[in-house]
């Protein structure tokens, strides 16, 4: 899958993408490589990570797998430092790792709450902080967080996921304000449902709508295509967006705009 609609040149840049073993993350890693960057595939699941690394390298792209649990702040910091030491620069950091375990809120255990918040909200903060420390010193850098339309919308049974994603949107705004003057941009994207493994996990839970319902609810009357999200990421990573920071860009077929039936 080649995505080259925007004129984006990332030659020589170094990008770290968390949760990049599959789905969105792998698509971002591939896109950064195809536009000239080196991608670090940070992934908890070693098998997924190695497979992803192999698939990119087989296409002649510069990618490397790094095992990472994003909920471990020290590990995130260590990866950021190791990446900087190895390449001498850190240009792009994408906090993408996510987990979907939806259930009635009265059944959510403390462990499940900590797991979801730990990966998606704390993990995003650790990534921003670790990358930010390097980028602030470097005097430039781009951080992109993967939020969700569910950071805006409420759904029964999704207290953990939706709270974490709402937190990511505000974390992004806060860091955008804080680091804007120092040339480190922090933005997010809020995708609607795309055909990823995580979406397929999501619709398995009790009370979840079918894919047909998702499609019917969306003003675009379809789910997203991964290249459409990749374009948004490339735009935010590129010099086309140098005045954009603190922003969450919805890539959602207008679902958040639709407050009707």
């Amino acid at each position, binding site marked *: 899958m080649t995505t080259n609609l925007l004129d984006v040149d990332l030659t020589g840049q170094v990008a770290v993408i968390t949760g990049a073993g599959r789905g969105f993350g792998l698509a971002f890693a591939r896109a950064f490589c195809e536009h000239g960057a080196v991608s670090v595939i940070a992934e908890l699941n070693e098998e997924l990570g190695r497979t992803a690394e192999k698939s990119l390298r087989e296409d002649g792209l510069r990618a490397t797998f790094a095992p990472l649990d994003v909920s471990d702040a020290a590990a995130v910091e260590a990866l950021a430092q190791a990446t900087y030491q190895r390449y001498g620069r850190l240009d792009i950091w994408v906090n993408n790792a996510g987990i979907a375990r*939806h259930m*009635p809120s009265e059944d959510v255990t403390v462990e499940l709450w900590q797991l979801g918040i730990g990966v998606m909200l704390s993990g995003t903060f650790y990534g921003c902080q670790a990358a930010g420390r390097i980028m602030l010193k470097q005097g430039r850098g781009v951080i992109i967080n993967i939020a969700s339309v569910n950071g805006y919308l409420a759904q029964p049974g999704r207290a953990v996921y*939706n709270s974490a994603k709402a937190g990511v949107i505000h974390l992004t705004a806060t860091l955008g304000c804080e680091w804007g003057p120092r040339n480190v941009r922090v933005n997010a994207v809020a995708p609607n449902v795309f055909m990823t493994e995580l979406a397929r996990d999501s619709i398995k839970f009790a*009370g979840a709508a079918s894919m047909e319902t998702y499609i019917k*609810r969306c003003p675009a009357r379809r789910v997203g295509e991964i290249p459409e999200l990749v374009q948004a990421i490339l735009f935010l990573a590129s010099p086309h967006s140098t005045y954009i920071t603190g922003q969450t860009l919805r890539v959602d077929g207008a679902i958040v*705009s639709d*407050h009707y*039936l």
Partner: protein
Amino acid sequence: MAELDGMLAVVAGASRPHASACARALSRAGARLALVDTGETTIAGLAGSSHQNDGGDAYSAELSAASVGAVLERIEERQGAVDILVTCAAAPSVAPSVELSDEDFRGALVSNALHAFLWCQAAGRKMVAAGRGVMVNVTGLSGMGGWPGWLSQSASLGAIHNLTHTLATEWTRHGVRVNCLVPGIAELDLSDLLKTPEAPDRETVLRRIPRGRFATDDDLGAALIYLVRPEASFISGEILRVDGAWDVWGRYYAVDPAAAKK
């Protein structure tokens, strides 16, 4: 809750959809009423009804600064200083946007946005000078975001929401609070909803409301009384929805995941 102690409340747009619920709640809480609309007949009907308190009266005002200003003067002469202003939104004109006429669009901006502006400005001048007062603009859920087929209503109510934010930033420091109240879907709104392109039936609309029932006049009235009372004295620039979680619901999931499991 304690009474509103004979405070004078102006209800502008008194013949509009949610006005009688507001007027009744204010009257029950002890407020005196000045009911205003553009047409005489409807107002006479409201003024003569059982929720009219002593000292209440009905007025007719055109949608111009001069007319609204003159009517407000007359209200003050007859009933005293205005403590509370409530403006009510008009019923929507529903049509697919490709068919919406410029008259209908302009009409909604006039009857909603201009209406709220004229009343808030006229009352605001007096309230700011007096150093106290409270305004509540009653809008609607289509003002919270996109509603297919409701373009003129959505745009004109959205304008009132931002008018409210701006007035709050100007006048709150002078003791004048400005808020919006967004009624949920009541049975009386169904006829408008059923006109929309997707023409949902009653059950579909009901399933769309997480609270599991339609909004009542008492739901709206209680929130209105809360907003105008001193207990809400730090609340200004707020858009308070009384909608049973309609607007926040992302609609991908069944309202009750536990029930859906069975």
